[in-house]
Every structure is written in C-alpha cells, then in structure tokens.
C-alpha cells in the first residue's frame, strides 16, 4: 500500500514538472517566397456532399487558373483540400493538420464546422471563409476572423419575403419549411422581425422538416390549413425537390421560394417538371444568367473539356469565394507586410470593393472593420423550362 502511494505521488510530481518544460512544436514558419498555403475543408461525401463537391471543384479550379495566370504576386497558391464528410470532429482534426502545415487562411464549408472553428480561427488568427451564411459569422465582435462573402440566410429570407409581399399584392400566409437543425432555424427570427419592421402584410409559420422523410405531405397539409400560398424553404435541394413533387401530387397551388441551398440546378433536376414556376433566391448567379464574371470560368472550362452548364452554379460559388480570398491575399502582399493571417484580415477589411463580374449579389463584395458581411444583394430566379431564369438581379432587402 505504501509502495503504491509513493509511486503515485512521484508520478504526480514528475508530471507537474514535465508540464512546465516546453516541447517541440509544429511547423509554423512561413516561407517568404514559396507557395501560399490555403487549407480547404470540403464535404465531398457527407450529408451535403452533393453540393459540396462542385463547390470544392470550382474552388480548386480557380486555384489552378490563378496559378496559370501568374499566381498571386508571382507566388503560386497551394490549396490543401481534404474531405471531412460533414463530420465536425474530422473538420477539427483537418484544421489542426492545416495549422501544422503553416497555412495562412482556411476555406471551410458548412455551418457546423464554421461555427465550431469560429473561436479557434480567431485564437490562431487565420482568416476563414466558408459556404455558411449564418448571421453570427458576420459580426467581427463575435467572429473576428470569419468573412461571409454572400448575403446571410437572414438577408436572403428578407429578399424572399419582399418578393412574396410584392407578388401577393395583399395579405398572404407564408409557411417556412426548414431543416430541423440550427442551420434551418437560423433566418427564422430575423424573418419574423423583418415582417413587423417593414409592416409587410404577411404571416409566417415555421415547420421543421424531418430528415429522413419519404414525403412532406404532413407539412403540406398543415400549411394548407394555415392557408399558405407561399412556402419558403431553408434546406438543401433533395428535400425541397420532394416538397415540389408532393405539391404537384397533391394538386396544391403553392409557390416555393427557395433560399440559396435549394436554389440550384439540382433542385430543378431532381424535381423535374414539378419545379416549374418556383422561385429561387440565389446570390451566386448561375451560368444561365451569362454575366461578365461567368466568361472567365466558361473559357477555363472549355479548355478543360467541360462547360458551366455541366458544372452548375455551386462551381461558380466555389470559384468566386476563393477569388475573394485570393484578392485579399494579393492586397496583403502589396502592402509589403509579412504574409500572416492578421495581415490578410486587415487587407480584406480595408481594401474596399472586390469585383466579381456581377456574379455575387450586386457584383461587388466589400468588407469593413465593423462588418464582415460582404454582400447583401442576391438574385431572384424562376425555374422555367428546366433552367433558372433571372427575374431580378442584385436585389437587396
């Protein structure tokens, strides 16, 4: 017994002593002439892999194109891209791996990982952009190193509600179908507040969409008893397409207003004919809008033997998100400082408008010290004849 106590005490003392000693660390030195490393955390096979894959493809294609075009200030971009399959612990592990490799910035993907890594990237001083447009990421007080390149879900819902109010021309009921998770709930309250602030003659009720459901008729019948003629959907394309199919099957006269995650070609493909006439709120213009910013992508793709039509708008989304970051890095290099995360952050905040050829929202993305919300404008499209036809571009709430 005495033996054991002595051993434990000795072990404890040694442990305490060892904790004080410093160990070997990771590789954090940045090479001042070598490639610029950016860590990319992508969802290729997880729950949102069907949209994550073209997004990642577009992002990496931009890197390839930019490097061929002389890189950033003569230095190549080295994008380290790995799949985390929407598993937050894997995202955290990949983040640490990239940190170890000495990246200067991170491109994330979803709300789950963006919010989980929020405090870490600010502690480690790495600018972070992602495809999560949650409101909390735009506030530099809460998330100083996060940058949101597109309008937030709340902004998109505001635009959607404006459109509904206009289309209804009078009092109308809106049913909001949302993913049964914090991602789905994100814009709800802001949407309700907007209705009262702007005095819109609308009434909105929210219905969570269960994840593995073969049909959404239950929700539709509740929406019907509410008298809803418009359904705003904050979810990804597959469930939204199911709702569209069910609306046709039920012979209901309801119009869907999809927010950006179901407002894409996939929704139209999946729903087929049932997609006709529904409204899509999408900040990133699809190829079919044929804007100035699409040309460079189309040219690149032609060289690769593909086309924008084949790749879809999430490709464009990834492309321009990386472009915005690259421009920030270019600006940081130009100011002559060491290329650190903080320098890039300050460059993004101070450089003014970044041009995206009209593709993102109203066309220009701008950050500032008080706001990391790059854009509030979005495009409103209608699904017609199997494509996304623009109704109005550059709409702000």
């Amino acid at each position, binding site marked *: 017994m005495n033996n054991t106590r002595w051993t434990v005490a000795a072990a404890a003392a040694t442990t305490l002593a060892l904790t004080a000693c410093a160990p070997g660390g990771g590789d954090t030195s940045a090479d001042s002439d070598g490639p610029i490393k950016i860590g990319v955390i992508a969802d*290729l*096979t*997880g729950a949102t*892999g*069907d949209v994550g*894959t073209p997004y990642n493809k577009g992002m990496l294609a931009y890197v390839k194109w930019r490097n061929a075009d002389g890189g950033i200030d003569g230095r190549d971009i080295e994008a380290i891209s790995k799949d985390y399959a929407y598993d937050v612990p894997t995202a955290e592990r990949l983040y640490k791996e990239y940190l170890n490799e000495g990246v200067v910035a991170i491109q994330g993907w979803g709300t789950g990982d963006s919010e989980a890594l929020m405090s870490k990237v600010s502690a480690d001083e790495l600018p972070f952009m992602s495809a999560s447009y949650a409101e909390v990421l735009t506030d530099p007080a809460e998330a100083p190193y996060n940058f949101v390149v597109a309008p937030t879900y709340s902004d998109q819902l505001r635009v959607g509600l404006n459109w509904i109010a206009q289309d209804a021309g009078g009092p109308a009921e809106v049913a909001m179908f949302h993913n*049964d998770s914090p991602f789905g709930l994100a814009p709800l309250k802001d949407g309700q507040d907007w209705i009262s602030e702007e005095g819109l003659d609308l009434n909105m009720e929210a*219905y*969570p*969409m*269960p*994840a*593995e*459901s*073969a*049909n*959404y*008729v*239950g*929700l539709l*019948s*509740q929406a*019907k*008893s509410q008298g809803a003629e418009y359904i705003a959907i904050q979810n990804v394309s*597959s469930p939204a*397409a*199911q709702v569209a199919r069910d609306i*046709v*099957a*039920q*012979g209901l006269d309801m119009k869907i207003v999809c927010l950006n995650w179901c407002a894409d070609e*996939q929704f139209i*493909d*999946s729903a*087929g004919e049932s997609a006709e006439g529904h409204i899509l709120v999408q900040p990133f213009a699809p190829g079919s809008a044929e804007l100035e910013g699409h040309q460079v992508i189309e040219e690149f793709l032609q060289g690769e033997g593909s086309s924008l039509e084949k790749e879809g708008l999430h490709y464009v989304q990834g492309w321009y998100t990386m472009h915005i970051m690259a421009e920030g890095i270019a600006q940081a290099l130009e100011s002559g400082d060491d290329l650190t995360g903080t320098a890039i952050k300050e460059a993004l905040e101070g450089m003014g408008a970044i041009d995206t050829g009209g593709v993102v929202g109203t066309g220009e993305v701008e950050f500032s010290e008080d706001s990391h919300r790059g854009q509030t404008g979005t495009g409103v499209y209608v699904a017609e004849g199997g494509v996304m036809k623009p109704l109005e571009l550059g709409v702000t709430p």
Partner: protein
Amino acid sequence: MNTFLNLTVYGLSDGAILALAALGFVLIYKATGVINFAQGEFLLIGAYTLYSAFVVFRLPLSVAVVLGVAVAVALGVLIERLVLRPLVGENAISVIMVTIGLAAVLRAVVQLIFGTRPVSQPPLLPRNPIELLPGTSVPLNRLLVILVAAVVLAAFTLFFRRSRHGIAMRAVADDQQAALTMGISVRRIFAMAWALAAVSAVVGGILLGDVTEVSGRLASFGLYVFPVVILGGLDSVPGTIVGGLTIGLISQYVSGYGDPGLAQIAPYLLLIAILMVRPYGLFGETRIERV
C-alpha cells in the same frame, strides 16, 4: 376528413415499404438469430441495381426487376456464406457489429460507383393524381406502392404457410435441433433466409427509390425497421405488416397534425413505451431462459 384520408394513404404507402424491409429483418432474425443492421443498405442496393439495369444499361423494366431480384438473392447467399457462417455461435454483439461493418462496406461500394448526388431515374409508377374524394387527390404511385407491397407480402405469407421450404424455415426458426433431426438442411435454410430477406428489401428499395429519389439517403430509412419489429413482434408476417403500417401511419399523422420534427422520433418514443410494458415487443413471445 380530406387531410386525414390523404395522410392515411401516404402513411400506408410508407408503412408498406417499411413492412417489406422489416419482413427481411424478421426472416433473418427468426431463422438465424442474427440482428441485421444492414437492412437499410439492402434497400439501397435494390434501388441502385434497378437504376443500373434500367437507366444505365437500358434494359426493359421487367428484365431490370428480375435482375434486381437475382442480384438480391446472390448477395444474400454470398453474405450468409462468407460473413455470417463463420460467426455462428459468437455472442450477439459481435454479430451485430459484423452486420454494421457490412452496412458500411455496402454503402461505400455504392458511393464509390455512383457518387453522392441523387441519380435521376424516370418514374416507374405513374404519378397522375387520383381523386379519392372530392378535394382529396393522391398520386397513383403511392396507391400502387401499397398494392405491390401487399402482393409481395401476401406471396411471402403463402410461401410460409404452404410451401415445403417455407414450413422448413418456420421449423428452423422454432427449434433448430429438432429441425436438424427431421432432416432439414439448416445451412440451406440460412442461405434461403438471407436471400429472401434481400429480395424483400430490394423490392422495398425499388419502390422507395421510385416515389422519392435514388440516392444514398435511402439507407437511413432502414433504421425504422427496429420500431416496426418491436411493434409487430418477431414471430409472424402479419405482425410485421401491422407493425410497418402502424409506424408509417404514426409518422405521417404526427407530421400532419403535430410538430413535424417529432415525426422523426415518434416511432422511437412509441418503441420505448412498448418495451417498458412488454419487454418482448407487443406480440412477442416471452423467452424462457434456462440455465
């Protein structure tokens, strides 16, 4: 009334597919004692096999369905032979884990070949809305799903009641030793149980893929097999059918009249409630254990 009828039809149609999947599960459990966690993945394989045969290789529909069934039989027999046979006698947790491992492998294979995007398949069953009552219309395909599932389930019931192999299976499920002494090849029965389970799941998968979409999400439908089995008991085909339909209806009613998010866990809540009162399921037989 309209809403109720509407919800009932959809609930029954989802429930019918669940019953098909659960039937396979029950078959395997009764005959071999294995708890098969890969049932959802069988649904997946079924839907994708049909997709490959019908859309990729452009075979006529009937040929594609027969091919799907054949692949199911082959898969079932292969799994039983290679994976489950060596584990006879191991404890329950090991067998559960092997089926979980199997599920992961099947999912990965589908992912490797087809990717994660939903694949587009032309509707197999007609979708035109049918007016049941004035003001209530349901799409024809949902009604046909109920019909097809009913036919398949009736065929299985007949098989078990009348055919020699069916009776042999029931014998093995009841008492393996006695069946062996009667000259029944238990090995053959095991293989048959897995093959039939796969067939049942494949048909369910094809139907499910048609009314929703063919994508990796089909596999998660398989988790609802467990509440069905608890509700309906593991001892009879009619019980499974009742269980499947009930779970389908409950989910549908909850999503139609209550909080739709709850519809996802309502079957589990029901399951726990039942198990509290009857630890062997609603229609299950109390197991007599001897030391």
